[in-house]
């Protein structure tokens, strides 16, 4: 039987799910000899791995008389087949024994298996040096902070580059690209009308509804116009519009520029002499600066309309009364305060969206990551800016 096995059996039946001919890799350990059996192939070596993991090789191979340097024979005559994974484990068995000071003499190894073992041993030395140590928690924290700081600096550099590009464009107005600007006004502004209108209208209803129960208690029904008008015009409609646009258009900017970076279109633009910032960023910035204030005006109207509908049904304040009261409640500065924030929000959204787009490096996953980051960062920055506006306006008494 032993002879039959030794006479070069073919590889275990490929394509056969049950693999009847396979035999799990095994190793028998005696005092001064070890014997490998079975198929030392990737699907059958799990036992050897476990055996090594138990540290069995170190304990079992030490001879009883204490002569730790006694040679040990490794008989591979019954080794049916060997692949890279098996060779790697065989190498580990040998290396483990040699670490305990014993010399391993191989016997019965077929020439093609010996070649494989030799190759694996050669790469092992190389691979061992390659594994970089895992960084400690402190090192990782430091790296994160350092990267965050670097990103802020890069953002500032980007803002500066965009500003100089914008000035250069102003100096040569003929080079301003009107077509992409108009296209972006349409896609970021006009196409966003339905969703913005719906959300702000619902917000007007909610504000009026929440206010109604309080106002009714004091018989101050008519002041619902003050409530809705001020809340909408000063705060909610600019903020909501900016958040919707950040999700809709800021993400699209990041994804578009990011994909163009992956496919080297950005580099191609540069080589034909078109500065990418001029072609890709300025039109978006200009378009959004035009579109977002317009969207905000539209949102003001629909938000107030939502409040009016609720005032009529809940508080019996008719449309005419509501509008008349609104004239007294609001002054021009309330409207301008809201509209005035919109261009700033537009700048934040387009700059962050484009910046993250340019930070894409390499692959599809990076595009997705950068797009997400652009939305999160621009919404965050919009809210922070809004808070700063509130403080400043408060101090100025507007």
């Amino acid at each position, binding site marked *: 039987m032993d002879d039959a096995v030794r006479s070069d059996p073919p*590889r275990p039946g490929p394509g056969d799910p049950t693999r009847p001919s396979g035999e799990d890799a095994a190793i028998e350990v005696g005092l001064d000899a070890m014997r490998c059996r079975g198929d030392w192939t990737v699907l059958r070596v799990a036992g050897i791995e476990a055996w090594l993991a138990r540290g069995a090789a170190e304990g079992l191979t030490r001879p009883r008389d204490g002569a730790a340097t006694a040679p040990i024979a490794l008989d591979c005559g019954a080794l049916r087949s060997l692949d890279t994974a098996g060779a790697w484990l065989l190498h580990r068995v040998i290396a483990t024994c040699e670490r305990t000071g014993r010399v391993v003499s191989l016997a019965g190894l077929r020439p093609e298996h010996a070649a494989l073992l030799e190759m694996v041993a050669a790469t092992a030395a190389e691979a061992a040096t390659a594994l970089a140590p895992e960084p400690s928690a402190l090192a990782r924290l430091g790296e994160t902070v350092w990267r965050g700081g670097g990103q802020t600096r890069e953002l500032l550099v980007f803002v500066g580059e965009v500003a100089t590009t914008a000035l250069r464009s102003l100096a040569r107005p003929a080079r301003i690209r009107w077509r992409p600007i108009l296209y972006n006004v349409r896609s970021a502004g006009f196409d966003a009308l339905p969703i913005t209108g719906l959300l702000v209208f619902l917000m007007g209803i909610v504000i009026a509804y929440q206010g109604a129960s309080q106002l009714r208690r004091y018989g101050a029904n008519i002041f619902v116009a003050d409530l809705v008008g001020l809340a909408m015009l000063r705060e909610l409609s600019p903020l909501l519009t900016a958040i919707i646009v950040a999700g809709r258009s800021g993400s699209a900017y990041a994804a578009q520029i990011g994909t163009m970076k992956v496919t080297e279109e950005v580099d191609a633009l540069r080589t034909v002499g078109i500065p990418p910032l001029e072609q890709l960023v300025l039109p978006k910035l200009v378009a959004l600066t035009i579109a977002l204030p317009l969207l905000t005006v539209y949102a003001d109207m629909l938000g107030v309309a939502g409040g009016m509908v609720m005032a009529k049904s809940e508080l019996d304040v008719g449309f005419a009364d509501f509008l008349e009261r609104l004239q007294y409640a609001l002054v021009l500065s309330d409207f301008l305060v809201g509209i005035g924030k919109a261009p700033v929000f537009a700048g934040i959204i387009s700059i962050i969206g484009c910046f993250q787009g340019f930070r894409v490096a390499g692959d599809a996953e990076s595009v997705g990551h950068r797009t997400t980051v652009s939305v999160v960062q621009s919404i965050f920055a919009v809210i922070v800016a809004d808070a700063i506006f509130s403080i400043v306006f408060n101090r100025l008494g507007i």
Partner: protein
Amino acid sequence: MTTETTPHDPMPTAATDAQRPIIEIRDLHTRFGETVVHDGVDLEVREGEIFALAGGSGCGKSTLLRELILLQRPQSGSIRIFGREILGLDDEQARSLRRDWGVMFERGALFGSLTVSENVGLPLREHTTLGDALIDEIAAVKIALAGLPPSAGAKRPSELSGGMRKRAALARAIALDPVLLFLDEPTAGLDPLSASRFDELVRHLKRLLGLTVFMVTHDLDLLWRVADRVAFMVEGRIAGIGTMEALSTSQEPLIREYFYGPRGRGAREQAWKRR
């Protein structure tokens, strides 16, 4: 199990070993709508050889490769791999079959979200129960075997050059020590020096791991220097099959054009000089 010689015949002689077909394609027909892609393809790949499928662009060689690796189904015909009919396998059978071959795609198809080492370890994690540390070590061996420096393992595919990406793709293809290796345009997009190193690599791996290699290529240097046998495909049929020497004397006009065009002649002269 049929009565024919099973792959685990206990006493195979050297002669039957070399003759045993690994891939047998019989009367294969493929159509995409009205377009006929394969019009009766017959082909046999023997164990232990490096077999190349050549032909002009759009002649159906990539489709044939996709059919062999179960990504596409022909309309009719028979494909036997390791002596088993592969058309109409269930999922479990297909899975076990896929474990026995490796595929290297033309553009590498490395997963961008994983490092090279994780890419190579992926088939091992999927098909074996080995521990993570061991899988990483085996992946490192494969990466070295594919001729990449050890530092490449921790990199993302996007950080590699085109040639290194090909090698990483090859390392993943041989992760499970397959019996059969499919290569789709292995040298496309490589500079001549990298391409000739890749030739050496394929031959070296074949010797070391005892692979059978099936490759689709139109790189004439690769055909001359690496392939044991070449099949030449023209308009959905095999127009000629044999060693490059035999094919180069073929009277088939399209094959002659292929070999005796300006580039074909150059590659042939180079090959003769080297021999």
